[in-house]
């Protein structure tokens, strides 16, 4: 009896302490949290999976303009979606029966932010480990434009450090769907923008008219599927990883040893790191190419005595790619 009561007492003390910690931590280390914006992000992430719609989207990357038809339909087996290019190659990409409860890390980060905001309320139980996406971006909510005939709310997203881009998003006021997005680089330069030209919220299946190329979008399996050949095959099965990542980025998959790719997301931006071990030395150096918001950074170097080529592809600034490439190492 005595033992029991002391246990209860300890538990009380612990939970009280953690409650105090939560309030203290959120007040001190998470200032400037825009709960309205986080609620919109949460809604956006849900609607991207759970709402049926189709429409035509224009996507401008630098000088290049692409037009595509997007279709997303939800039934009780999951979500099916397709993208059909109306310009250029004219290919179609499909994904069928993606389970609704299959939430990938990038979307978890957008939804986690909702949990963070809940946890900050005095009645909250579990304390946030960090400030979530609010720690890396600053949000503001404004009155939006009319996009594709829909009234929109505008979310202005500014990075808190130099490792990521900013965004201006326009979300459908009713559904939360992302109708327009601009990616903003240094000096308020618009790197790329996409927007719906028209949209209808109907549940129609994927179009079946014939196109030349149909690609079935992959779904990450525990083991990465190697589909790129040539000189990249001979890497040792040892583990490697970037020793440094910008804060807030997490792996998009469970790490699989020996894989030659790693991909990371902070919920809004995604970049991938590719490693090639080369058969012989090359002159060390770096090369950069940009297309819209995407950076391709390639770096020739020696890694643990082996000549290696490290490539970063992703929607991040060059300095981020350079610093990540610089940190790649073998893991013992």
């Amino acid at each position: 009896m005595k033992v029991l009561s002391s246990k209860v007492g300890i538990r009380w003390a612990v939970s009280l302490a953690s409650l105090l910690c939560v309030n203290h931590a959120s007040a001190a280390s998470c200032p400037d949290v825009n709960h309205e914006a986080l609620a919109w992000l949460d809604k956006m992430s849900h609607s991207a999976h759970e709402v049926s719609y189709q429409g035509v989207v224009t996507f401008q990357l630098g000088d290049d303009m692409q037009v595509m038809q997007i279709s997303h339909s939800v039934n009780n087996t999951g979500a099916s979606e397709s993208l059909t290019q109306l310009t250029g190659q004219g290919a179609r990409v499909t994904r069928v029966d993606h389970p609704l409860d299959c939430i990938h890390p990038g979307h978890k980060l957008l939804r986690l932010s909702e949990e963070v905001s809940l946890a900050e309320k005095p009645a909250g139980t579990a304390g946030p480990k960090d400030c979530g996406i609010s720690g890396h971006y600053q949000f503001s909510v404004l009155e939006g434009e009319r996009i594709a005939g829909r009234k929109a709310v505008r979310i202005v997203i500014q990075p808190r450090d130099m490792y990521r881009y900013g965004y201006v998003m326009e979300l459908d006021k009713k559904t939360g769907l992302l109708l327009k997005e601009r990616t903003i680089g240094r000096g308020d330069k618009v790197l790329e923008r996409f927007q719906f030209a028209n949209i209808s919220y109907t549940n129609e299946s994927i179009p079946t008219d014939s196109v030349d190329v149909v690609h079935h979008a992959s779904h990450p399996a525990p083991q990465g599927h190697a589909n790129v050949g040539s000189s990249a095959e001979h890497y040792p099965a040892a583990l490697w990883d970037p020793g440094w990542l910008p804060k807030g980025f997490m792996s998009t998959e469970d790490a699989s040893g020996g894989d030659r790719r790693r991909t990371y997301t902070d919920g809004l931006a995604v970049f991938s790191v590719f490693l090639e071990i080369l058969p012989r030395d090359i002159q060390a150096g770096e090369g950069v190419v940009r297309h819209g918001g995407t950076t391709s950074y390639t770096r020739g170097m020696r890694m643990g005595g082996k000549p290696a080529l490290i490539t970063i592809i992703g929607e991040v600034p060059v300095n981020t790619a350079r610093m990540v490439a610089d940190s790649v190492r073998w893991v013992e």
Partner: protein
Amino acid sequence: MSERLRESLSAVMDGEANELELERVLSRIESDEQLRQTWVRYSAVRSVNEGAHIAHLSMDVSQGVRAALAQETATDGAKVNNAAQRFLKPLASFAVAASVAATVVIGGQQLYQIGDTTPYGNTIAGSSAVGLINTAGATAVQASYGTQSMPVLQPTVRTAYRELARQRMQKYMQEHVEQAALNSPQGMIPFSRIQKIEE
């Protein structure tokens, strides 16, 4: 090295640093071995020379940069005499000057040894180690074939690396986009970044 310092260093290397960031780096570089090594490493890559040459890291980088900056401002009309006035100087031109100075000081004195004797004499273009495909547009790449016994021209290597980055972007974009489509708010839209979608 703190996150903040790392960020400042990156800004300096990109020629985007403001005066405060540059000061932060310069004030630490004499005492911070890790910072100094990172700086030299970044610079080594930027000057597209073999990193193995940088054996002695004892050189006083900050003194060199300050000297170069002093020269830069002196030739600028000798109007910048004290700290207050220096602050009034447009940050953009200051950042450019700093970036140039950093490259000149490190690249010039330490790394720019192109008559080189390294075991890695091959240009990346002359070697098929990375599977670089020579394209019609990249004449500079073609020009570098067979130069193994000759000094490598920096612009050629730079052009070759840019071409390599372009080809790697094509090669890896689809694999990157498969991940981006599932982990960003854009859904399927990133697939339109791929130049040629493979089935």
